[in-house]
């Protein structure tokens, strides 16, 4: 398990297909003939312990679906996720509680993350009791107070007595992070954790998440639309388009030298990535398509400014560049 060569997290050819409901009855149609929403389509990634991996891409490209699969709220149609070389599907089967403790998620919508019926105290105490963290209820309560205090939520006694709807989105998201971090997880997925919050509190909340992650040596998968933000916090970046990773590499490599036309378009439309370097916006046409039976060929080809004939024939393979940076584009030659 502690083999040096085994990566901490391996996402191994994950796909997630949802049956596409086009209003017809498919009782007698075979799996091949039915239409599918390929929300996640053959995604493979690895990451190291304690790293931050940013996943960016436009709405509907399957980022949240990937996140849900990683925490096993859903199981993949095919493929597996390995944590320390062990299959998470198997871990979940063998010891559900232990797996849940290792992989956590912070949801996008803090207003719906907690049941409206319970006070914050009940909400925070429940997992602690469930997992027997802390010897007594007094000790657990002290842990809650301490964590709230450290998270800048005071007066703690007041907060503990409140119901979720009596707190702000920022406060709720902090509590969500605190609760997940009680477990000292190995991996935490942050699915657009600040996109529903006021701009003024975003940085604080992300810093809090990153501080806690660093303290517990927790790896973070940061899912976001926001390139400027993702670039600022992550070690590696994966760019997704229609369920596929089209480019992956160290953050600096991807941001400073994007190779995939889609990444280049994204970055060129993002004003605050590189203010010194005046870039012209690259053109992108058409609406983001839905991932219903995409292909053959490169999924981005219909909107791509670089597209050529070869792009429409088959989905392009990986082109490896330096430092593990790779891109999936037929117009790029290996260096």
């Amino acid at each position, binding site marked *: 398990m502690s083999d040096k060569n085994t990566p901490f997290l391996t996402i191994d050819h994950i796909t997630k297909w949802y049956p596409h409901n086009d209003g017809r009855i498919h009782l007698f149609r075979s799996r091949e003939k039915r239409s599918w929403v390929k929300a996640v389509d053959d995604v493979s990634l690895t990451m190291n312990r304690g790293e931050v991996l940013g996943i960016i891409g436009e709405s509907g490209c399957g980022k949240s679906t990937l996140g849900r699969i990683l*925490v096993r*709220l859903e199981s993949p149609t095919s493929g597996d996720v390995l944590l320390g070389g062990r299959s998470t599907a198997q871990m979940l089967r063998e010891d*559900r*509680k232990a797996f*849940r*403790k290792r*992989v*956590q*998620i912070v*949801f996008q*919508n803090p*207003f*719906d*993350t*907690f*049941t*409206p*019926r*319970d006070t914050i105290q009940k909400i925070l105490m*429940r*997992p602690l009791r*469930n*997992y027997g963290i802390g010897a007594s209820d007094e000790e657990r309560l002290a842990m809650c107070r301490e964590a709230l205090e450290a998270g800048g939520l005071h007066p703690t006694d007041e907060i503990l007595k409140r*119901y*979720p*709807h*009596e707190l702000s989105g920022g406060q709720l998201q902090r509590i*969500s992070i605190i*609760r*997940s971090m009680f477990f000292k997880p190995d991996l935490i997925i942050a699915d657009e954790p600040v996109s529903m919050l006021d701009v003024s509190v975003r940085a604080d909340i992300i810093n809090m998440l990153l501080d806690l992650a660093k303290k517990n040596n927790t790896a973070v998968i940061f899912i976001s639309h926001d390139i400027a933000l993702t670039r600022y916090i992550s070690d590696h970046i994966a760019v997704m388009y229609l369920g596929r990773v089209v480019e992956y590499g160290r953050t600096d490599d991807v941001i400073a030298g994007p190779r995939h036309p889609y990444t280049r378009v994204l970055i060129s439309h993002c004003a605050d990535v590189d203010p010194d370097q005046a870039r012209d916006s690259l053109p992108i046409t058409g609406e983001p398509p839905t991932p219903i039976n995409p292909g053959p060929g490169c999924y981005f080809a219909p909107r791509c400014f670089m597209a050529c004939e070869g792009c429409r024939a088959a989905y392009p393979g990986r082109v490896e560049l330096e430092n593990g940076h790779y891109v999936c584009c037929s117009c790029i030659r290996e260096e």
Partner: protein
Amino acid sequence: MTKIQKALRAIVSDKQLLFGLIGIAVLLLIILFQDVLETHDPYDYGPDSLAAPGINGHLLGTNKLGQDVYSMLIAGVSTSLKVALISSLISALIGILLGGAAGFLGGKVDMVLSELINVFMMIPTFFLELMIIAMFGNSITNVMIVIGLTSWASNAKLMRAQALSLRERTFVKSAIVMGETRPQILFNYIIPNGIFPVIANTTMGMSGAILTEASLSFLGLGDVNVISWGQMIYDGKSYITSAWWIATFAGIAIVLTVITFYMLGDGLNHVLNPKHISGGKK
């Protein structure tokens, strides 16, 4: 403090709820002061048979056996409320558990339970009740259990719909990720958040329970050892032309009580609507 104020404002703003609550309060007061209110012992066979209202101090007359109709009406309140309460509790309990489990667990469990719910929605329940009572005897306990066992399907259907939408909510997903077990999620999240329509429906169902008990009694399948309004109508129906007061007042009592519970249930339905209570969101 603010919660109580909110509740009070909700009650006053909803006329049906107010009416229902006043009605229930009156019924409870009658039960509380039953001994004071009864002018005669309702189980006592007096000398006056079929006395008209007003004669010999019998406010609403007497029946064939000389029992005081007014005192019987008073005694009937507690019977009706007992039947309503216990049978509804049974029906709510079964409905919440089965409906919640079906909606939350989904899959095969849901398929089986949904079929069961549909069967119970479709079968003529009154016929079933008749058969069971005929088979197991007509004590008031049996009547209550049978009403409960045959009326849970609408509660289950409501609870299932609630569970189906609640299980997609983020707080349920986050509970799963926090390692909570399915029973824990059912009892901590699904039921507490989805129970309100069931409470309203159960309250309305109480009027159905009272009617069912009355109907069973009317057909002679009630408990003859307990005074109930249905039993009074059953006794009085052969005298409806000669001694109309025996059945009529009991009928009026049933109608008023049924309306009270209906109003209360409907009022609760308005006030407990998730849009009203979940404060934070619009």
